[in-house]
């Protein structure tokens, strides 16, 4: 018998083989649950980062606001009388 014909005959026999039984459903569901990202965690992280950034901006903004002088003051400054 030709080698390739022999292999085809072998394949014909092999196709009749039954695969071992498996039972994977529970493990698949566990793996899916482990892989599934929690929708709360990324949102919470984003909210916390936004709050921290807002607090920083508020802190610097407020201190800058308090240190601001009247912008019109410079216009009148040269006119101030110097009392000798």
């Amino acid at each position, binding site marked *: *018998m030709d080698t390739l014909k022999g292999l085809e005959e072998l394949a014909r*026999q092999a196709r009749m083989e039954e695969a*071992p039984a498996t039972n994977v459903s529970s493990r698949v569901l566990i793996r899916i649950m482990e892989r599934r990202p929690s929708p709360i965690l990324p949102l919470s992280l984003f909210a916390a980062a936004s709050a921290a950034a807002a607090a920083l901006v508020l802190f610097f903004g407020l201190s800058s606001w308090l240190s601001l002088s009247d912008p019109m003051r410079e216009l009148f400054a040269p006119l101030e009388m110097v009392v000798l």
Partner: protein
Amino acid sequence: MGLYDEDRADIQASLAGDGGAYERLIKRYEARVAAQMWRFTRDPAVCEDLVQDVFVEAYSSLATYRGDAPFLHWLKRIATRVGYRHWKKKSREKLLVPLENLDEAESRGGPQQPSAAADILHHLLSRLRPADRLVMTLIYFEGSSTEEIAARMGWSRGRVKMHAYRARKKLREIAERENLAEELGWTR
């Protein structure tokens, strides 16, 4: 309700987060997927891991299933890729199945017994490069045509034919070198 409608309903429910629906899909197709993964390994534990990988990967891509082909065809495409990836990983680890196992396979009833024939064929095909091996595995074990393999792998038909030609040439060389014709009684 037909199988196609049942699948569609379970897929929709799975996408909505119903674990029970996906469990039904797994149970419906597990045996078919296991039969395919058994062509990629002869180790029952590895086979079970591969079946798990197929269903986990299928779940991740479930939203991309358009329903224009039966769900089983779509699953088999994923299964083929999972199996092929397994072989490529194994070939990087340089793990080859020794051909000496032929004696063991023969002692279990010879090539006339389906499991012995599958063992022998698996050992022979393990000598090929992963892409050649995949093409011949699908041809020999599943009776797939070059067109079906091309569609399943996203390859051109010419590429599949090239792999099949190279694999057959290599198999003939191995068979002659190992004197398989005499060992398996093909000369009778």
